C-alpha cells in the first residue's frame, strides 16, 4: 500500500502554485495525521529495542543488523525479492498480449472486456485468495481436473501451502494492476507509428523492440511498480496459501513481529528494506514518466 500512498504524495505538489493549497489542506492534513506521522512513529521503533513487555527508547542499530545477519531474515528478504520479481515478470508476459489485444485488436465490446479485467478488483482480495485455496488444495479443482483427465494419478500436494501456490495466486490477483496501465498506454500509441515502422522495413519483431516496447515503457514501469510492491508487502496470501505458517515471505514475518512476537522494533526494522526498495522503484519509475508526468 506504500506505493499508492507515495503516488498521492507525488501528485499533490504538482498542481499550480498557490491556488490549490486550501483545497488540498484537508487531504494533505489527513495524510499527515493518519499516514505519515504513524509511519514515522513506526519506523522510529526500528532504532529502539524491546525489554520484555516495554520498549527501551535508547538508540540502537541492533535490529537493523539483525535484519541482514540473523537467520532467517536475510534469506526471507531475498526470497521475497525473487518472488516479487518473478510475479512482476510473469504478469508483464501475461498482461502485454492481453493489453495489446484489448487496445489494438478488439473491435467490439471493448468496454465489456475491460470491465472483465477490472471486475475481480470489486471483490475482496481475501475472497480471491481463498478462492485459490479451493482451486489449489489436495481435493481442489485443479487436482480433480488433472486426475479426471488422467494427466496425474495422484493429487499433487505441492500446489497449496507452497511457494508455487503463492506465485500462482500473486500472478492472478495483481494482474489487473499490470493490464490497466499497459492498456492505457498501448491505446494511446498511434497505429500510424506501427505502420511507419512497417513501411520503413521493420517486421513485427523489430517494430516491437524499437517502437512498441520503448513507447510502452511508462505503462510497463507503472504496472511493475504496483505489482512488485504489492507482492513485496503482502502477508495475506503467504498466510493462506504459503507454507510454514505464512513466514516464507517478509510480509508474514513483519506481521508476526507486531501481532504475535510483540517485537515492534524488529518488525519496524524489517519494514525498512522493503520501504527503501519500493521508494527506489518509484524514483526510477518517475524518472521515466511512469507516474503521469508527460514525457513529450
Amino acid at each position, binding site marked *: 500500500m506504500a506505493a499508492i500512498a507515495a503516488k498521492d504524495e507525488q501528485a499533490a505538489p504538482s498542481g499550480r502554485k498557490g491556488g490549490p493549497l486550501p483545497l488540498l489542506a484537508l487531504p494533505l492534513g489527513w495524510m499527515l495525521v493518519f499516514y505519515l506521522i504513524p509511519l514515522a512513529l513506526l519506523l522510529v521503533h526500528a532504532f529502539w529495542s524491546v525489554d520484555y513487555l516495554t520498549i527501551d527508547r535508547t538508540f540502537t542499530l541492533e535490529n537493523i543488523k539483525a535484519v541482514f545477519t540473523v537467520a532467517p531474515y536475510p534469506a526471507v528478504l531475498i526470497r521475497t525479492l525473487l518472488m516479487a520479481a518473478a510475479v512482476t515478470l510473469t504478469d508483464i508476459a501475461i498482461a502485454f498480449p492481453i493489453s495489446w489485444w484489448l487496445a489494438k485488436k478488439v473491435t467490439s465490446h471493448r468496454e465489456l472486456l475491460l470491465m472483465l479485467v477490472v471486475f475481480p478488483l470489486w471483490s475482496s482480495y481475501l475472497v480471491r485468495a481463498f478462492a485459490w485455496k479451493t482451486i489449489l488444495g489436495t481435493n481442489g479443482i485443479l487436482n480433480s481436473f488433472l486426475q479426471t483427465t488422467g494427466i496425474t494419478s495422484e493429487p499433487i500436494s505441492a500446489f497449496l501451502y507452497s511457494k508455487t501456490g503463492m506465485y500462482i495466486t500473486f500472478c492472478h490477483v495483481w494482474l489487473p494492476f499490470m493490464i490497466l496501465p499497459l492498456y492505457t498506454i498501448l491505446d494511446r500509441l498511434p497505429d500510424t507509428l506501427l505502420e511507419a515502422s*512497417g513501411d520503413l522495413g521493420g517486421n513485427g519483431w523489430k517494430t516491437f523492440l524499437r517502437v512498441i516496447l520503448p513507447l510502452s515503457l511508462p505503462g510497463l514501469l507503472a504496472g511493475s511498480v504496483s505489482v512488485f510492491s504489492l507482492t513485496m508487502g503482502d502477508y495475506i496470501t503467504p498466510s493462506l496459501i504459503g507454507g510454514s505458517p505464512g513466514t516464507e515471505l517478509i510480509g508474514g514475518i513483519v506481521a508476526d513481529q507486531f501481532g504475535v512476537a510483540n517485537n515492534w522494533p524488529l518488525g519496524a526494522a524489517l519494514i525498512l528494506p522493503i520501504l527503501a526498495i519500493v521508494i527506489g522503484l518509484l524514483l526510477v519509475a518517475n524518472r521515466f514518466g511512469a507516474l503521469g508526468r508527460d514525457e513529450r
Partner: protein
Amino acid sequence: MAVAKTQPGGRTAADPPSIELRRVRKSFGDFTAVAGVDLTVGQGEFLTLLGPSGCGKTTTLRMIGGFELPSSGEVLIEGAQMGNLPPYRRPVNTVFQNYALFPHLSVGKNVAYGLEMSGVPRGDRERRVREALDLVRLPNVENRRPSELSGGQQQRVALARALVNHPSVLLLDEPLGALDLKLRKAMQLELKHLNREVGATFVYVTHDQEEALTMSDRIAVMNEGRILQLGAPEEIYERPRSRFVADFIGQTNFIECDVLGPDGRFVACRTAGGETIRAIPAVEAPAGGTITVAVRPEKVSLDAEAPGGLSANWNRLTGTLTEVIYLGTHTQLVVALPGEGQIVVHRQNRMLGETEPSTGQQLTVAFDPASATVLAE
C-alpha cells in the same frame, strides 16, 4: 539442362509501369471503399488521387503501400505482383498524414530507421541521413527530438525518412493538411521539385483541388470508390467529363439545355430561355435529350467586352445582373437567366477605376463554344 536466366540490364521501352492496379476492389464489411479501380502510373510520374473524404483515395493508396490488402484485383509495382506482401517487403515508402515520426527517437534516428532495418552499415547510414536532410533543406537537426520542431520541419523530416531509402514509389497521404496556407504552397512546389530530383514515382492523396492542379503530372478524380476521370491537370480542368468532376474542381456554370443536333464539331442545344448555344460533346448527346453544358466563369465575358471578330460565333446569353462581388483579382458577376438558372462571370480586374455594371440591368454575356463542355450526369 536448364538455361540460366539473367535479369535484363537497363531500361527499355518495354519496362513495366511503376504501378499498375487491375480491377482493385476493397470492402470493409458491407461498405465498399474501392469499387474496381484500374490505374497505370508511369516511372517518375507525379500522380494525384483527388476526391472528397470517403471517396476511396486513401484506401487505394494504402493498398499500394500494403497497409490494406485488396478484396479482389491485383496490385503490381515495377511489374511484380504484390499479392499479400507486407509493407516492409515492398519497394515503397510512405509519408503519413500526421507525419508519424517516432517521438522517442531523435530526428537523425528517425531518418536512419529504414536504413538500420535494412542493415546499411553505420558510416553509410550517417552520410545518407545527412544527404536526405540536406535534400529537404533541413540540416543540423539530427540530434533534436521531433517534438522540438515546427509542423513544417516535422513534415520535412517525414519526407527525408521516406526518401532516404531510395524507394521507387513514394506514397503521400495528405501530407500538407496540417500546415498553414503559405507553408503549404511552398511545400507544394518543393515536393514537385523533389519528384524531379529523386526520380521516384509519387502518388499523392489530397482533397484539395488546387494542390492537385499545382503539383500533378496527372490527376485521378475519385468518388464513391471509382476513378471518374484521369488526365493532366489542364484536361481535368478544361474538359471535365462529369458534373461531379466539373463541380469538384474549380467553379463551374451548369446550363441545362435541350439538344437540337450536331453542328460541326459542336452540338447545338436550346436553353430554358430559348437561346441556342453550342458546346463540345465530350459525351453522347442524342437529339431530343436534355444535357448539361459546363463553362468556367473566367471563360465568360460581357458581350460588350468580348474580343471583336473572334467572338462572332460565340454563344450569347442575356439575363439580369443580380450580384456584383469584388474578389481582389477579379469581380464576380451573377446574371440570372430567363426561365431557370444563372451564369457566373469572372471579370479580371486589370485596371484601376473600371466601372462595374450595376445590378438590375439587362446584360448579355458571351463565351467560346470550344470552352463549353457537355457533361455526363
